[in-house]
């Protein structure tokens, strides 16, 4: 099976070192084809069925443009998600697929409404935190740095259970969305490098459970050391 990974709008949606996730996947999948779709072009997922579609965090103005850019392809996106195509949306990329984003003035910017989730912006209070969560038997670590908090109904499909830190919002005990093979999380930056278990999950969902992790021993040592610090210091 040919592996084709689509990276959406990498020229803009890369605020926190996020492209490293794809560079790392490339190291794990040297035979894979990584397609960068610039904002000015039509996404690959319209014509093809990629193994993975990735979208990283973006500025608020870019977010509004990305929503309008993807709006005509809303049905296609939902079809692919329902069919089990892998998606990874990190940072505020998840909000693009929610119902709306509420600005500080109370204005609601309609998003694609694929998921029952909405976000509220507060531009003068940036939320920064460390996060430790559970994914089945595994522990997932990461960092949040964002202007929004997100809200979802109680029966939504969460990605992680909060162990330490903040979920979708301050009182929420779950983080992100996982529906079929779609994973959306507010964790930003090199989430796949920070969490080898997440990379494994992604590769398995892509039908490549036997794929070897690049720099496996170093990435495991870094993970263990960091996990120890997350337990002790956060």
């Amino acid at each position, binding site marked *: 099976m040919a592996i084709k990974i689509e990276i959406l709008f990498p020229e803009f949606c890369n605020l926190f*070192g996020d492209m490293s996730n794809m560079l*790392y996947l490339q190291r794990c999948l040297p035979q894979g084809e990584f397609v960068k779709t610039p904002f000015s072009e039509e996404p690959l997922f319209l014509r093809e069925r990629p193994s993975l579609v990735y979208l990283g965090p973006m500025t608020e103005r870019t977010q509004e443009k990305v929503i309008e850019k993807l709006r005509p392809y809303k049905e296609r996106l939902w079809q692919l998600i329902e069919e089990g195509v892998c998606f990874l949306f990190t940072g505020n990329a998840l909000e693009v697929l929610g119902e709306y984003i509420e600005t500080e003035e109370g204005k609601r910017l309609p998003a694609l409404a694929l998921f029952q989730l909405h976000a509220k912006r507060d531009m003068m209070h940036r939320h920064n935190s460390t996060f430790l969560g559970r994914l089945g038997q595994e522990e997932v670590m990461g960092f949040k740095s964002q202007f929004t908090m997100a809200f979802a109904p109680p029966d939504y499909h969460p990605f992680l259970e909060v162990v330490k830190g903040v979920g979708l919002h301050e009182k929420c005990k779950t983080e992100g969305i996982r529906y079929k093979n779609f994973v959306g999380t507010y964790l930003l930056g090199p989430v796949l490098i920070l969490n080898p278990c997440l990379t494994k999950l992604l590769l398995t969902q892509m039908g490549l459970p036997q794929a070897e992790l690049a720099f496996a021993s170093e990435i495991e040592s870094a993970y263990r050391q*960091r996990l120890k610090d997350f337990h002790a210091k956060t």
Partner: protein
Amino acid sequence: MKRNLRFFFALFFAKGTALVLKLIGRKGTSMPGSWAIILCPDFLGRMPRPKTVVGITGTNGKTTVANMVEDVLSHCGYDFVCNRSGTNVNTGVASSLIANSTFFGKPKKDLAIFELDERSSPKILPYLKPDLLLCTNIFRDSYKRNAHMEFIVDILQQYIPESTRLVLNADDLLCASLKPQNHRSFFGIDRQPGETAQCRNIVQDIRVCPNCGAALSWEFIRYHHIGRASCPQCGFCSPQAGYRVTQIDADENTMTVDCHGHQQKFPMLNSSTINIYNSLSAIALLSQFGLSTEKIAASMEKLSISETRYKEEEVDGKKVILHLAKGQNPIACSRAFENIRDYPGKKAVILFLDDYFDAAHSVENISWYYDTDFEFLNNPDIPQIIAAGARHWDVCLRLLMAGIPPEKISHTAENHQAAELLSKEGIDAVFILYDVYTIGLANQVKDQTKALLSGGKSAGEQQRA
């Protein structure tokens, strides 16, 4: 804003605090200003401002430039208040103004030179209303504090007063787009040999025309989004600079600046592009302030770069270099890595990248490593890289991701053992990269490194022997 009872209470309390601090021998704290603002939140708006206020802001270089500007002005006989020994946020500015005031708050000196934190603009600029404001550049910085460049551009755009005359970087389209209605002057460096339209950095925060969104056409990219561009669709282009570096003479250590048609040679403190930009922006600001270019040039002869930011020492013909690399600032670190790559000879590098506070009490968000061009360190002239500190495994991984062969990398959790991992074979220079808060550590490791290079055994070797 009028001065009311609350203001005077805050002022007297702050003056009292300053007096107590002075009596117990503490200098340069922003505590008086903090108290004043706690007691009277709009204190800066009510405090009478000096007749002329000059501000220096921007992501990188503002401290160096502010020091340079202040040194030149002192040399030219100006008397002014500044926040050099304090902080660059609202409380630091308030403290400086309080220190400069009479009993009832009237300014003693008529001129103020302030380094201003760009993130604090909303709390400073509308009150202080600088007459002249330099913005050195706008880059990605700490994700926590500064979020992203669009956020910083927006707050500057919103809070810079209409009356403020601006001095802006023509080679930085983010910076050059600020306040188009204000009176603005620009500085820039002409295209240098070897500069192409190709970006060699991970981060490039301007890619499309700010007017119409079309992909920009670049005449050259110096680094990141610094360069000159135009829009093939709407005609938008980088502004013409009134202050242009037209020639750099590295042997003579001079640079020639075209100042609105008048050619003037200036001494160059250091030939790195960053330092040329720093000097150039200081020249443009001082010229806009009213000094003649001859006078600025003559005063600049007397300057040296502050030793806390870059320091070279020599031992047995080998160099040991302390290089400041502001943590969590991907651009500052990328520039440092490029400097190391371009430095002559074979180099070993010791990296102290941990955030001092996060390493002690939390876990640092290391995402910024992946916005930083560690790839510059992947070079045959850099045979050894040592990473030390709490996140040493993460730095090691980043170096591997940059394609650096594992045999070149060593790492340890113990900061003080970094020098022990050094091998002096085939090395002409050792770079020690540190953050503002780890200068003490960097100096210790520098001494250990010098001992090792001068023929003595390293502490580790001595122990093992």
